[in-house]
Structure formats: structure tokens, C-alpha cells
């Protein structure tokens, strides 16, 4: 990014302001205000007068509530790792283009256009005890009895994977295929085999993209709600923090407590992002130098 010279500064800033304004307004109205209002609400418990941390104290002393944090992490972290790893692998394999690339990409991306509910219904039908998946495997004699793939942890993981893989894959494909192929070629001629090229050259160059993918998938997974209800076990193994907040809000009508849970969720998401950013910094300090002048 170039620095503004003296004299052209004001003009540049005015233009920048005009461009930034709509998104700034949107963020203020749609995010900052509700967020601050949520924090405010969370600090005004229904049964007490004035400000209090009572909601937070209740949450972190009630095992039924605070264990939703671990349940959510237990879903979000493995899901993020699996989604990003698979997407990275596929994107890396497709970085130079492959046969029928458009068709394959279209098929991979289709789930995005379907919406969570339809996808969940599809998974229930396909992977359910009487679904095709089991019909075929039982019919072939591969399985003796049906596996339990829905209404549990696996069901939620399947659903999250299918929702998040396409967009993660697309994002990484754009990133990976944007890396100049001659960088890889030069590494090859310098004596690096395919694995060394991946590990020593491509991975550091892809790291910023991978970090963003990690961050986005993690945040989306941490807020998992419809999948956890439709395909999981919302009263037990997949009672995520979003479900806990929902119950307080719409089953017990305690908006204040629900807000507190939502704020806790937001803080954990933020903490997750922070860890990812720090890890990325440590892993590849130098990659932030960018691809340089061309």
C-alpha cells in the first residue's frame, strides 16, 4: 500500500470516507449496536435491580450450562480441522486445473445453494437407518446392522462438513491457484521433491489463506445451531452453547441470561480467532512480506 503524499492526502481521505461510509453504517447499526445492547442486557439480570455479573456467575457454576462450551469446542475444533484439511488438499491438487474442473467445482459448491434445512433433511434421509446409505451397505453385506449416523455427534459433523467445505474449498482454491506456478517450478529445479515443495514453499505462501479459512470455519462452527438440533442430540451430546442461549431466550424467556450466554459464546469465538492469528504469526512471520514487486 502506498503512502499518501503531502497535498493529496485530503482528497484521498474524502474519497476513502465516501467508500467506507455505507459499510461503516451497516456495521454500526447491524452489529455494534445490537452487540453492545446484548452486553448491556446481559448485565441487567431479570430478578435483580441494577448491574450485576449474576448471569455469568450462574452460567459458569452450572455444569449443565458451562459444559456446552466444551461440547461446542468438541464440535467446532475437529470440524474446522477436518474441513480446512480436506479443502486444502483438494484445492492444492486442483491448483493447476484438472480435467472437468468446472463440473467438479459446481458439484462441490452445490450444497451452499441448498440451505441448511434442506441439507439436514437430505442427510437424515440418506444416512438414516432406513436411508440409501444403509440399504446399500446392508444389501451388499458390508454391514451387519445399521450404524448410527444421525441424531448424534456424527450427524452434526456430517452436516457442518457439507455446509462449510464448499466455501472453504473455493476460498482456498482461489488463494492457491493465485500463487505463481514458476515459484513451485523453481523449487523443483533447485532439488525439491513434491513434498518438500509443499512443505517448505507452498505451505508458508498459503498460510495467510489457510489462517483465514480456519478463522471463518471455526467461527461458523462455533455458532452451530440448526444442524445441532436437526441432526444432533440437542438435549445431550450436541447441546451446543447456541442451543443453551436459545433455550434461555425462547423457552424460559430470560433474555438477560440468554444475552449473557451469547456474549460468552462471542468471547470464545474471539479467543479462537486470536489463537489462530497468533499461531499464524509464529508459523510464518515472513510470509506477511507478500509476494513482492512484480
Amino acid at each position, binding site marked *: 500500500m502506498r503512502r499518501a503524499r503531502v497535498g493529496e492526502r485530503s482528497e484521498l481521505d474524502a474519497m476513502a470516507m465516501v467508500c467506507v461510509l455505507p459499510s461503516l453504517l451497516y456495521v454500526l447499526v447491524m452489529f455494534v449496536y445490537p452487540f453492545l445492547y446484548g452486553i448491556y442486557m446481559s448485565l441487567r439480570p431479570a430478578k435483580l435491580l441494577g448491574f450485576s455479573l449474576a448471569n455469568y456467575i450462574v452460567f459458569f457454576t452450572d455444569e449443565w450450562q458451562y459444559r456446552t462450551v466444551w461440547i461446542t469446542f468438541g464440535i467446532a475444533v475437529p470440524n474446522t480441522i477436518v474441513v480446512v484439511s480436506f479443502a486444502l488438499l483438494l484445492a492444492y491438487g486442483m491448483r493447476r486445473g484438472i480435467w472437468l474442473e468446472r463440473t467438479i467445482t459446481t458439484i462441490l459448491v452445490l450444497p451452499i445453494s441448498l440451505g441448511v434445512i434442506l441439507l439436514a433433511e437430505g442427510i437424515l434421509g440418506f444416512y438414516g437407518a432406513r436411508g440409501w446409505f444403509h440399504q446399500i451397505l446392508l444389501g451388499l453385506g458390508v454391514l451387519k446392522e445399521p450404524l448410527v449416523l444421525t441424531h448424534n455427534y456424527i450427524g452434526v459433523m456430517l452436516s457442518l462438513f457439507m455446509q462449510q467445505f464448499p466455501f472453504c474449498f473455493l476460498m482456498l482454491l482461489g488463494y492457491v491457484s493465485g500463487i*505463481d506456478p*514458476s*515459484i513451485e*517450478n*523453481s*523449487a*523443483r*529445479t*533447485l*532439488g*525439491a*521433491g513434491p513434498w*518438500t515443495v509443499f512443505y*517448505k*514453499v507452498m505451505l*508458508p*505462501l498459503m498460510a495467510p489463506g489457510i489462517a483465514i479459512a480456519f478463522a471463518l470455519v471455526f467461527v461458523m462452527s462455533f455458532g452451530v445451531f440448526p444442524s445441532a438440533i436437526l441432526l444432533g442430540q440437542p438435549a445431550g451430546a450436541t447441546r451446543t452453547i447456541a442451543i443453551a442461549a436459545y433455550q434461555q431466550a425462547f423457552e424460559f424467556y430470560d433474555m438477560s441470561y440468554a444475552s449473557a450466554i451469547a456474549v460468552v459464546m462471542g468471547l470464545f469465538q474471539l479467543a479462537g480467532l486470536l489463537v489462530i492469528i497468533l499461531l499464524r504469526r509464529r508459523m*510464518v512471520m*515472513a*510470509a506477511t*512480506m*507478500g*509476494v*513482492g*514487486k*512484480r
Partner: protein
Amino acid sequence: MKDTIESLRFRITKRFGTKTVLKDFGLEVRGRQFITFLGPSGCGKSTALNILAGLIPATDGDVWIDGERIDHLPPEKRGFGMVFQNYALFPHMTVYSNIAFGLQLQRRPAAEIRERVGQMLDLVQLPGFEERYPSQLSGGQQQRIAIARALVLHPRLLLLDEPLSNLDAKLRIEMRAEIKRLHTNLGLTSIYVTHDQTEALSLSDWVVVMRDGILMQAGTAQEIHDQPRNVFVADFMGFRNFFPVQVASVGPEGVVEGTGNGMRIRGRTRHALGPGAAAVAAIRPDDVQVGEHLGGPNAFHGKVDIVEYLGRENEVILTLEAGPRLWVHTPERVVPGESVMVVFPPEKVIFLPPDGEGVSA
């Protein structure tokens, strides 16, 4: 460097789908030479270089070095160095790490790596640049580092893929001399790809002119420059004026005379052109003489159309009385509309087979 190759021999065909980009493109050369693949863009020269490097598989053919067939080897096992048009430095590594990359893969001792990287930076005249990142270097500096990175491994063959195309004109000439110096001092075998005939002529011991994946002519720079074998090579080498003629008479030592368009042109040829054969007479703009007092064979009248000032000389486009247009470079001052006499010195006129012939594979 003692470990360069003695001989290189290859013959390759490459098809992308139904498109043939290299058609039985073959060559046999000694080591320690500077070899150039020269041709317009899309002629397959870079593809050929990438196939030699092992970065692209050939559809058919083989590559031999010192009697050993190497086309089945992956690029990392060939021991070649390669320099790319866009430098292809690792942006996330310092200059030091870029140059040390190959040595580290070979698990050389740290002290040796440090010493050799230092030597290389001295060689490319960038000492003290160890801790910089590629983005902090100019294009010319990046290309020097890219060359250092390739040379530090003592490659038995150095491949350069249009390494100067991204540099400005002045730097290009500087770097050209630099590359020639390194090549000569280190006793390398180099293959250089370019579309710039000046680069090819100034650098090369051996020039290979290509068109549409076919070898048009291979020879020393002087041979290619003075005795192009066909109209394409002649055109590429700066013969701008072509006159279709019919051979009228053939004398001793390649002296030949042809007529066409009401012009009688005398020149020389290295081709077996018998009387009555169709041919093309060609002369460079620089070789045409302009002046009123001139006479003798190959003297023609013409009218000046356009004069462009080029500094040391003028580029003049004129229409010959007989009809065809003529490009001339002359220090003479002429003005548009003026009638002038031009002469083609017979020793500067070459007779070639008509376009499409004289192509050897």
C-alpha cells in the same frame, strides 16, 4: 565450474490436446556453449525449455546428456539450474535463504552454505543483501539473486527462460553482459530462450531459430545473421525487403540473377536454385545505399514516402519505380516526395527459396 556437460542431444514432440506445439524438435550440441532458442511468442521455445527442465512431460521423444538418457527424471534429479522470466524468488524467504535453499536440501554443512552463498552474492555483485526480502529488491536485483540461486548449486546445465524480458531497456543490456560474463567465467553450458534477436546474437555461440514448434535453422550467430536459410529466418534477422523473382541466370560461387516486377536483381545464394526457379531476393534496410551519383547493377529509382528520424540515421520508406516498397536505413538527408537512386550491393543481396520452402526439421 568443472562439472558442466559435454554434450546434449534431444528430439521432442509435444502436443497439447490436438495442438502440436513442438514437432520433432531436435538438436545435438557440445557442452560449454551458449545456446539460444529464438523465435516469436508461441513458437514453442519456452515449452522446449520446460521439457528439458522436466517441468512439462514431452509427448514423445528423448533427451540425452553425456550419453545418459534423462527424460524420465523428475526436475529435482536433473541437476539443472533454471532462471525464470518473473524471477520466481521465494517471497517468504530472505535473499540468503533463497540462495541457500538448494544447498540446505542437499544437507550441506552450515559453514559451507554460508561461504557459498557469500561467494554467489559477490559474483552477482550484491554483497550485503543477505537479509533483504525479494519485495525489497528491484527487478534487476531480483534477477541477479535468481541467477545466484541457480548457480550456487553448480548446475551442469543452466536454463534461462526470457530472463531479461521484464527489465527496462538499459538494465537489459547491462544484465545481458552480466549473464555472458558469468557464462564465460564459470565455463557453463547455458540454454537461453528469447524472442529478441539482438539478445540472441550478442550472447550465443549457437542459435536455434524456431517457428510453430519447428526448427527453422540452427547455427552460429554469424551464420544465422549472414546466411539465413529461408524467408522466415531472414525476416526475423532483419531482412525487411523481399522481392519475389524468377531466377534468370546462375553464375559461379553462388552468384545469381533474378527478374521480377520489372526489376533485375543480382545477389548470391547458398541454395540450389536453377534458372527459371521461383525465389525471393532479400536485403536489409541497413545495406541499401542511397544517393544520386550511384550506378551499376541493382540500381533503382524510387520516390520517398516517409522519413522517420532514428537518431544516428533515418528510416526511409520509399516506393520503387517498379512498384514494390523499400525500407532503407540511411544517414542521408532525404525528404518525402523526393526522387532518389538506391543501390543494393550485390554481395548484400541473398536469394532464398520462396516462403514455405527451405525449412528443415
